């Protein structure tokens, strides 16, 4: 199985957990693998990710689904978990 690296854009408040980097690379083929990869590479991100985050994949905001596929070309942003009123 080929490894698939994807680039993840974090919100800048998370730079404190990634050694000052706002753009990181992890190996992932879907949202679940991406989040696990982030925690593995940057353990300090775990509380934030555990508290709930959304992942924007090519502009579509994935609030919950861990199975959402991603490709090496996907534009990926980690954003705060959405909720509403």
């Amino acid at each position: 199985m080929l490894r698939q690296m994807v680039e993840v854009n974090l919100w800048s408040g998370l730079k404190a957990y990634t050694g000052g980097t706002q753009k990181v690379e992890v190996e992932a083929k879907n949202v679940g693998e991406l989040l696990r990869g982030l925690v593995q590479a940057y353990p300090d991100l775990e509380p934030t990710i555990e508290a709930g985050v959304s992942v924007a994949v090519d502009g579509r905001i994935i609030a919950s689904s861990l199975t959402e596929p991603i490709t090496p070309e996907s534009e990926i942003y980690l954003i705060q978990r959405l909720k509403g009123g």
Partner: protein
Amino acid sequence: MAPDGNMTNGFKVVGTRPKRPDGIDKVTGRAKFGADATAPGMLHASIVRSPHAHAKILKIDTSKAEALKGVKAVVTRADFAEGLTGENWNILENVMASDTALYDGHAVAAVAATTALGARDAAKLIEVEYELLPHVTDVDKAMADDAPVIRAGAADKSVPEGLHPNVVRYHESGHGDVDKGFSEADLVVEDSFKTEATHQGYIEPHACLAQLGSDGKGEVWCCTQGHFNVQKVCAALVGTDSSQIRVTPSEIGGGFGGKTVVFIEPVALALSRKANRPVKLVMSRSEVFRATGPTASTSIDIKIGMTREGKITAAQGVFRLQGGAFPGAPMEFTAMCAFAPYSLENVHQVGYDVMSNRPKQAAYRAPGSPMAAFAVESVIDELCNKLDLDSIEVRLKNASKEGTKASYGPKFERIGLVETLEAAKAHPHLTSPLAEGQGRGVSCGFWFNHGGETAVSLALSEDGTVAISVGTPDIGGSRASMAQMAAEELGIPYESIRTTVADTATLGYNEISHGSRVTYASGLATIKAARDAVKKLCGRAAAKWGIDEDAVVWEDGCAKPSGPNAGDFEPLPLAKIARSMGRTGGPIVGHYEATPEGAGVSFATHIVDAEVDKETGQTKIVRYTVVQDAGKAIHPTYVEGQFQGGAAQGIGWALNEEYIYGEDGRLQNSGFLDYRIPVASDLPMIDTVIVEVPNPGHPYGVRGVGETSICPPLAAIANAVSNAAGVRLTELPMSPPRILAALDAQANG
């Protein structure tokens, strides 16, 4: 998900305006709301609340209350689960204080008695000994070095070092180089803004009836936006399994985000377990104000640079949100929504979640976004005025569109902001003359919308009618919308379908009715469940005709051979297949369970005319137009109602509504006499324009509409009032004293 063909044409039921199925029950008083639930042997409960903003609880003596005739149970924090962590701990601490009362109105004990009067009398006999602590209720003061600490150690790791312990979460986002952008501007405007906390103002107070046995099995009937969440939270707080608590939602007399939160149900359950009888608990209006979630109050700094031609070169904002005595003020949404309407090369936003001695804030439609729009759109209006530019043209010049890199990071998919601005530009309101003393304001607004866990079941009856079960409480006419979408798919009349909001034992977990998600997510699930049923119907027809299932299509409510090669058979209507379903394979039920992730974001543009009396400071809204992208309006009347409701609530928020705290930290206006929501005579007829730019994430193109409508009003009204008064208003509400103070300050230089 690809949209289904041309989504704006060809609908037979979607887009029409049938009568709402709950209409007769609502207007005749037959509909059952939270306080209407009763049970044999039912007790009535009352909650003892702290009269202090911040106080150590030294002792609670319940002996006199327990000795009162008719009292059957008293509970304190000791009667709830122990060892909770995270948000469950926060909820429990808010539901029933442990060792410290954190705000005026914080629950400290509760009592159940055979009569409501007896319960209230008993509550007065519960003696609580307090040691007063210093308090703070203002967001800026709560961040100051000398502010009392609400709860040490509440901050998460996102908070930079050196900030006060009351700052519990921090957000920073953006892109580009704002300093470079500001240097390229012909004019830079900076200003600071404040907004007070407002309540959702739902007419029905929180109410529930609960029963919990010593075996851990329980029932709850309550008014809520999310009964599956009530089930989950109650199970955790009283220490039983979720599946043992069955929750049935009542009709709901308004929620607007305020009923996404659990306040009283665990208390009623704990009392019931102790008394071994059902317990009813109904909040008074004063309790609703003092102890349920208003919005966060805010303190905001905005700086925007613009060229003479109206191009925004840079924008930055600092957003401080006070969310009461617990973490959770939605400062990240405030920051992320603030500049979302605009395509910006250089943007930077910072958010602070600040604790204070106030009740735990709750969502109020589009949580956090209206306050951001108020500040940002006020500065844009000021820039337009100073550069003598047309406010709609400037917004069009800078508007986000498909492919724009959003201020919060990712690129937008298909969005409809430009279409709302063009529709506003073409609306006669924008060019109608203004009278003396009047001013006009416009504003854009943005909200994300949400999908979330959703399960729907659609069952056929033998007579060909259909029952839909959804798990999302109907807070805006969704039973009608679901029936319309199912009718569209099945090809049967709208009147042949009944939609029921099912209890927690009937369906899989459904997320709360929040995030403008119901018509999108439950609607998508209803369409998919109908298609599942259609597949089964086609299967029955194929079996009857002895042909392949693939050779059967569903058209106009009938199974038909797909073409001449499939055979020559008379179309089989749904009712005919349903009549024999028991003998052809059993009941036909369509299902769909998923977490739809394609909720499209939405934008709105509002136009407001306001008239200001400079002698008295009184403001009257004389004309109001809402233009919003709905993606696809399933029931246009309900969509228009959501638009109008957002505008009406925005008028109250902008002009009159505010939580007023005294020096003692106690809420001074916990009733509708002193907390003034708009009444009909305060409002003009609110005109609406539905823009339909289909959401690619829904089969019919639906976007949520319930929240975006409250994003622009604060700003649009502030711009109208400021233009009418000739002075910029930077603090909400723009009540007569504030307007007079602004005019005085201007006159005095």
